[in-house]
């Protein structure tokens, strides 16, 4: 299951609505407010520091040392050495290229599919509520379990995909899909199956923020639906498209569950996170695994920031 989207912050709203109070009573009330506030945020702050910040620092430290003789021991300080080795590793490069392929396919399918779905669901119709329940189903299911349900589809010999394509005479021999060049595209399709609902909901919210009058006014001026789509819908939808693209992007960069269930740790479909898993879980090489994980995290954060800045520049330009 993919992550959840984030709204852009709106500054200067919190706490600003209260009537001004003066004198001693106001000062006491403000103190009471501040004390209560600090108590109420204490648990979340403690959890974040203890279980996110601290392990982050601990992990970063591990990534700077060579592997020790035992799993809990550590070797000599190597600085950025582990990072350099990870970048030069051929397995890293092939995993990175695969991930690029996953990301490209996922983004195109998600945005195109999400746009079509959102447009179709924009206006009310009978059964739309039920349809939404159906729509979010793939997002709600654990991606590992979805992968298990898809497995028979890609089975070699008499899998459903083979049977279908043979029947349609699109292929002449049954394919071992997970061993061919089609393995990555098909795994990407399974990934998109799970993420499309979220992308659709984001785009739908964007669509519904476009006022109906824009459409009726342009229709009066003789615009065809196709021209309306190109000249009204797409430009006005750009903020939502950017958010959807960033979420789809970060999600696809970290693709793992579907690969694990459909093709295990096989090299021909390995993604960057799969390579981290391989280093940490299979080879028990913690320093290199963590170094790689940090590189991926930094890279996807950078991508998201660049995309946001690019979107903002284009909006102001």
């Amino acid at each position, binding site marked *: *299951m993919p992550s959840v989207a984030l709204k852009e912050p709106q500054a200067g709203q919190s706490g600003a609505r209260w009537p001004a109070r003066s004198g001693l009573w106001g000062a006491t009330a403000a103190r009471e407010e501040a004390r209560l506030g600090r108590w109420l*945020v204490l*648990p979340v702050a403690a*959890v974040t520091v203890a279980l996110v910040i601290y*392990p982050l620092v601990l992990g970063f430290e591990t990534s700077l040392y060579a592997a020790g003789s035992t799993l809990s021991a550590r070797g000599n300080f190597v600085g950025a050495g582990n990072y350099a080795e990870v970048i030069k590793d051929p397995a890293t490069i092939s995993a990175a290229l695969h991930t690029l392929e996953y990301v490209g396919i996922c983004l195109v399918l998600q945005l195109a599919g999400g746009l079509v*779905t959102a447009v179709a669901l924009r206006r009310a119709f009978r059964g739309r509520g039920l349809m939404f329940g159906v729509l979010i189903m793939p997002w709600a299911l654990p991606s590992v379990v979805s992968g298990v349900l898809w*497995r028979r589809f890609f089975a070699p010999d008499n899998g459903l995909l083979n049977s279908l394509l043979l029947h349609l005479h699109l292929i002449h021999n049954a394919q071992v899909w997970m061993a061919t060049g089609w393995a990555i595209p098909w795994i990407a399709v399974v990934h998109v199956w799970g993420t499309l609902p979220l992308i659709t909901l984001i785009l739908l919210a964007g669509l519904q923020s476009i006022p109906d009058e824009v459409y009726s006014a342009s229709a009066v001026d003789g615009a065809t639906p196709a021209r309306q789509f190109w000249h009204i819908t797409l430009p006005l939808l750009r903020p939502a498209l950017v958010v959807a693209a960033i979420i789809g992007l970060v999600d696809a960069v970290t693709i793992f569950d579907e690969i694990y269930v459909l093709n295990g740790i096989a090299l021909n479909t390995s993604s960057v996170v799969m390579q981290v898993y391989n280093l940490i879980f299979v080879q028990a090489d913690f320093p290199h695994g963590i170094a790689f994980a940090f590189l991926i995290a930094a890279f996807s954060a950078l991508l998201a920031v660049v995309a946001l800045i690019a979107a903002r520049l284009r909006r102001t330009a």
Partner: protein
Amino acid sequence: MKPSPAARALRTIVIVVIAAWSLGPVAIGVLTSISSQNDVQAVPARWWPHQLNLDAYRAIVGGVHSAGTVAGCVGCNTAADASAFGQSLLSSVEVTAEATLATLLVSVVAGYALSRLRFRGGKVLLWAVVGTLVIPLFTLVVALFRMMVELHLINTQLGLVLVYLSAEAPLAMWLLYNHCRDLPPEPEEAALMDGCTRWQAFRMVVLPQMRSGIAALAAIVMLLTYGQFLIPLLLGSTPSTTPVTVLITEFVGKYTTNYPILAAAGVIAVLPPAIIALLLNRHIRGMLSGATG
């Protein structure tokens, strides 16, 4: 504006295709789970089983199977696997309930405080906590594993719950912060004017206002927790800490080509999240699209 008949027909087609795409894999899973191994192995494949066959469910739930050995799996002990499957479902449900409760307790009060109370450091804390959302969980797993070993929390549900809490509380807090900020502030103002303390106003006025937001968030956190895979794969190896997501991948390794048994396990495993999604879809939808607004 009224759409033309052609546009309406096109929309109907698109909607049917989306419904088929969304439910197709689940439907194939259900059909596979009631097929016999003969149906599944037939060439060409039989999408529709020749007759209803509940052997897969008997094996996965009751630990019995009609033949002496399970096809596609030599030396499998279905009785042991069935009991492990039941145990893992129970564990998934328990840990999901515990983690959801913990996440809500922590994030409801924090979301309220950050959106409604003025205190020094509030803004900084909000952004620091929300900022941790960009840190992928897999960068933390090794350090978390070591911490859990040191704290003797490895292979305990408490250890898993703490890690899920740290992963989900920032998101939950952020969504509730937005939700709380969008609620009308007048009821709380009136309560304060009437002499309530801030805490009383929160408990008796704001908390009831937040009910639908909390319900939506509970659903989202439940779905996220139930779907966790990498964390329990690392932090839990005992029956009470192996969720159904992890167990099902073990089954994939064991019952490689016994699709009916795998599908039956998958169908049972998706029941809890599917029910939540269907029952609470309106709330979930509002929270997800509201979150991106």
